[in-house]
């Protein structure tokens, strides 16, 4: 964005960014240090040796995948609807959707629980996928609608003049052009689903269904608290998310570089 012509300018830029980033780095360093204290790498071994770890990991992946797919489809449809199509009382529906974001998770527990029982999906993946997705959708729609509105109308009109239908507009315009925001939504939905602790705790009863967010709890006691292993498990849990972010970052940039507005 910024154009730097002089060498000094480039150095200044680098220095400024580095200085700004240091406060973010500092606690991270403290955490990694903490995870290596005491037993050192054995902490990581201990975490990896937690019984059923791979099962937990699998469950988390399944749930995250389910949430992502559901949220992506629903959000893109809704973003197109809210962003470009005509709906009577559109803003009202939008605010209704936004209202779903406002309730704290803890307040949702009991009513969601009754719903899960009523619909019979208690102790299944759906009991976790549906609430998490329901909570992510307003957030995603808010962002995506914004982005869709940023796509110039002329493109859609041009497509229609060429005889395209609404659905084609969706498939050939919205989907490709929203790649950057879709990547962002994907990443945040992944984090929301991956890190979610309360819903799996309450809605998944069987030990085989537990998720990976439960692992740090193995090291917390009523009268004890093994910080080193908790931090080690935090690092391990975070790694897949960071990898996903890196992949998506590249996807971002490819989408941007493709010069969407052509």
């Amino acid at each position, binding site marked *: *964005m910024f*154009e730097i012509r002089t060498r000094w300018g480039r150095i200044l830029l*680098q220095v400024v960014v580095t200085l700004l980033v240091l406060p973010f780095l500092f606690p991270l360093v403290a955490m990694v240090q903490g995870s290596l204290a005491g037993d050192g790498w054995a902490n990581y071994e201990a975490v990896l040796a937690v019984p059923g770890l791979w099962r937990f990991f699998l469950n988390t992946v399944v749930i995250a995948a389910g949430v992502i797919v559901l949220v992506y489809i629903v959000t893109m449809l809704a973003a197109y*609807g809210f962003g470009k199509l005509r*709906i009577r009382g559109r803003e009202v529906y939008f605010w209704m959707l936004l209202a779903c974001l406002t309730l704290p998770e803890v307040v949702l527990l009991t009513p969601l629980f009754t719903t899960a029982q009523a619909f019979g999906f208690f102790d299944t993946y759906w009991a976790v996928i549906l609430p998490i997705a329901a909570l992510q959708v307003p957030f995603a729609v808010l962002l995506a609608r914004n982005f869709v509105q940023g796509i110039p109308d002329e493109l859609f009109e041009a497509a229609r003049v060429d005889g395209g239908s609404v659905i084609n507009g969706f498939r050939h315009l919205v989907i490709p052009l929203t790649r950057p925001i879709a990547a962002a939504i994907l990443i945040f939905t992944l984090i929301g689903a991956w890190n979610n602790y309360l819903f799996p705790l309450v809605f998944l009863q069987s030990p085989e269904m537990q998720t990976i967010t439960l692992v740090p709890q193995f090291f917390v006691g009523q009268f004890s608290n093994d910080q080193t292993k908790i931090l080690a498990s935090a690092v391990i849990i975070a790694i897949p998310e960071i990898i996903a972010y890196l992949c998506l970052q590249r996807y971002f940039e490819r989408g941007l570089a493709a010069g969407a507005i052509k």
Partner: protein
Amino acid sequence: MAGTSIAERGLREKPAPAAGGGRRSRRLQPQGLHWILPALVLSVGLIYYCIWYTAVISTWDWDGIDPNPERVGAENYIRIAQDPIFWKTIQHTIVFFVVTFVLQTALGLIFAVLLHSKVKLAVVYKVIIFIPVVLAPAITAPVFRQIYAPDGQFNSVLEFFGLGFLAQPWLGQESTALAVIMAVTVWQWTGLTFVLYFAAMGQIDQSLLEAARIDGAGNFRTLIHIIWPGVRGTTLALAILSAIGALKTFDIPYLITVGGPNYATEFLGTYIYRKTIPQSHVGYGAALSIILLVLALVMALILQVRGGEKRVVR
């Protein structure tokens, strides 16, 4: 669910020419209701039962389990209006929202701009800024308690820079505890604003930027007059999310300072949790939640109206 809907909907195009009159705009704006239906069914369907439920129990004096809850009508709301802790939470929320929103937005934007430019090892920076977003507060909280302890790293760093006189028990004082909570929040969420701004910047018309540069505009000018207005939509969305987030904020203040000392870091989110779970005043907590919902919608409306003045509903 969604797959069949698309097939079913088929070519739900413009209304048949006979029905829609001759207006150009109508012809070009197809019906969109069924596109938003899945979102509404999923979120509204699932969550609105919860909202209704919460509204009902907000008129009860209930512990969450007793089969015979006491129905007290609006009494919970009246008590809330007279509750000094409640007003404190509102105060904290406002301060928190303003400070964190400004800082996160500024930092996120600056990083997005800087890292869009030619910086070496940009990936490293991007990862560092983003990792905090991924870490669960339950795990980072003890680390921060350690960092801000009287003999913790933060004070050590201050001493290193000769600012030792500023060293104090940051978490043990009402005056500074809130500042720490805000700092940790900014640390955690700047990655979010960064990512969103980064994505939004891609939509800024390159030709505008080039035109500006040809006209001799400096980097700073470009930032203020082109980039900032260009990401207005994202800023607005972030403002709404920040407002709702500030009202709901729970993890960081609860885990680091437990709302203390002396309620100095109590927020509506932590207060609701405290009332609902450990104290089992579920009705009171529900009433607080309804108030939160109303406040959130009002805030979002205000922000939308004030920020969206220039946005034409296309």
